[in-house]
């Protein structure tokens, strides 16, 4: 697994951590991506799909497909709405949708 750093100013970035399927498909554990003052889940997802085309899923351009992924902010809160604001400094966890075992 690799950890990619795209820019180095932590307070101007959003950290994205990949788990399960997302890590399998990107081959990456985590990346830091530059972010405007506030971005949305939808814009973050679009940026991720450009960076990792393996994440692209037909019909799921504006948000992570809920059948595949679950999104958590900072390990605290699960979110699905594409317009969920994601501010700089936050950590976005992309997990497999199904956590059963």
């Amino acid at each position, binding site marked *: 697994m690799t950890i990619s750093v795209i820019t180095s100013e932590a307070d101007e970035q959003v950290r994205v951590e990949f*788990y*399960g399927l997302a890590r*399998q498909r990107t081959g990456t554990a985590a990346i830091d991506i530059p972010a405007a003052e506030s971005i949305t889940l939808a814009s973050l997802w679009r940026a991720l799909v450009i960076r990792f085309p393996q994440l692209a*899923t037909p019909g799921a351009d504006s948000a992570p497909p809920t059948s595949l992924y679950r999104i*958590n902010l900072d390990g605290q809160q*699960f979110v699905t709405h594409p317009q969920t604001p994601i501010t700089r400094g936050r950590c976005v966890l992309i997990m*497999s949708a199904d*956590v*059963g*075992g």
Partner: protein
Amino acid sequence: LNDGHGQYTTTSTPRGCHGRYLRVDLETSNGSWWTLSDRVLRDFLGGTGLGAYLMLTEGQAAIDPLAAESCIAFVFSPLVGSPLTTSAKFAVVSKSPLTDRYNDSLVSSGFAIAGKHCGADAIVVTGRAKEPSVLVIDNGQVRLLPAGQLWGATTSQTQTALKSALGADFQLAVIGPAGEKRVRYATISHDGRHAGRGGAGAILGSKQLKAIAVRGQQRCAWAHPQALYEYAKTLSRRSMEPATAKYRELGTATNLLTFNRLNTLPTRNFQRGRFEGAERIAPETLTQSRARARASCAACTIGCEHLYELNTDRSSDGTKVRLEYESLFALGSLCDIGDPDVVLRASHLCDELGLDTISAGGTIAFAMECTERGWLREEWLKFGDGGALLRALAMIAQRTGIGEHLAQGSRRLARLVGPQAEDLAPHVKGLELPGYDPRGAQSMALGFAVGARGADHNRSGAYEADFSELVDRRQIDHRSVTAAIATENRAALIDSLILCKFLRGIFTDLFAEAAQMLNLACGWDVTAAELATTSERIVAAKKLFNVRCGWTPHEDRLPARFFDVPLADDPVACLALDEFQCAIEGYNQQRGWTKAGWIPAAELRRLGLERWAPPTLLPAPDAVADNDTTLMRAHDP
């Protein structure tokens, strides 16, 4: 045919079922056939539902599960043998020697199909063989073969030897040394898969039954075969959709890093929710250093099993180990073991000895904490010591030294160690907790507490809500109650159909589709609404069995360590005892039971369960804290 119970009017046997079960008495080596009416089959379906019915009708609640007169049922379902993906499953149902309550375990593959082709919807085994034996059921004909030479053999050795002796077309359910020694969490193994929880293997051991071999040619007809085939094709295609991708591409073990990140990975006997060694034992890491293979059960299109090479050095003989999340957490983080070689070896050892990995790991981790606290004088049994883990597993299977006590499970061990230990023993009703920290997954915590089988992630899937927007996973409330009931009902239906739960994500309306499947297979005009009631009936039947066993509301609880103290790695994750108690009462009331959890007579009547109401097991007056006036007293003869 005997109509053993005569409670329902017998009608014609539906398609998809045989309308009877085979009851084998090991004392006499005889089998007898007992009727299952259309009404019974429709009300309880198969799998765990029909198993609960059989346990109630066989009067097993009052019987020691390790006594000769106890019964153990191998239960098939209307969909077994159909072209529906993942339908080759059977339930092993009994009273548990670990919990002394209702128990069912599901296991997949060819035994289900071959067993049903013997002409039976279930096989019930009672009595005790005079010597170590193999029960052979060949197209419905019963015979016992001596198996003294197999006594002591591992599960895979037994499987190989019997396939060679009987023929490859026999399907086998076998026990390992742990079952022979009546370890209370011994498994029954079929083709390397296990009916894992609750100690079914100990029951076979107590009956001196090393294995059951089945073969048959009695196929059921289907009500609408062409339409069933077409539907099955569609279902198989859907089973390859994104909802099952995790299972196909990675398997359940990939939960490990996710749970670790969320501080819900039980570590050091639930002292922590985060494990520093998680990356080392995670499948994402194992894949980089070991050969991996994928396998699937018979009649399954998902293929969720991921096997990892046991040895990576020159001594490797190519042996691969199935690795599921629950084994990984129980033999890894729970015991503070971060060495992947040890975890794989321990998992393999459990498979070969016939031990439930969750209960084995849970009991050993508990003993490690007792040692750490100076309550147990087994200085070698320390957290993080891989050699100790492997040694303990071998001692459990042989019941030597401390293994004699570890073989009893954490609840009984805690009673020996002392009252202070009982707060830390990681079980509900005697069944060790699966790998979800209750403080960080509080809906799941509720599911654990109220489950008839004990702490259980397969009969309650409330974790689905915890890891979603539906609830705040660290704040139990009414939404947790709703989630616990909904997922428990869904599990009751899936486990009775029987289908694999890994399919659940592809259904938009499970109950409606289940009705369609049953219509195509059996010709029943069943509806989604009827199946909703059926699922409630099945949940209540299990509870009723427990009531007949002597259940009290006090049993629906978690160990004291989980309450009112935040999880070490997450100060927000704190489970308040008063809120948890409110949620249990809410669960009971939303089920139509009393606040304390007793099932009112009217509810039993609604579900058609009133004939099993136990008039002699009424709660003591002081146990009735609410409006329990319509309890089972209404059914006094």
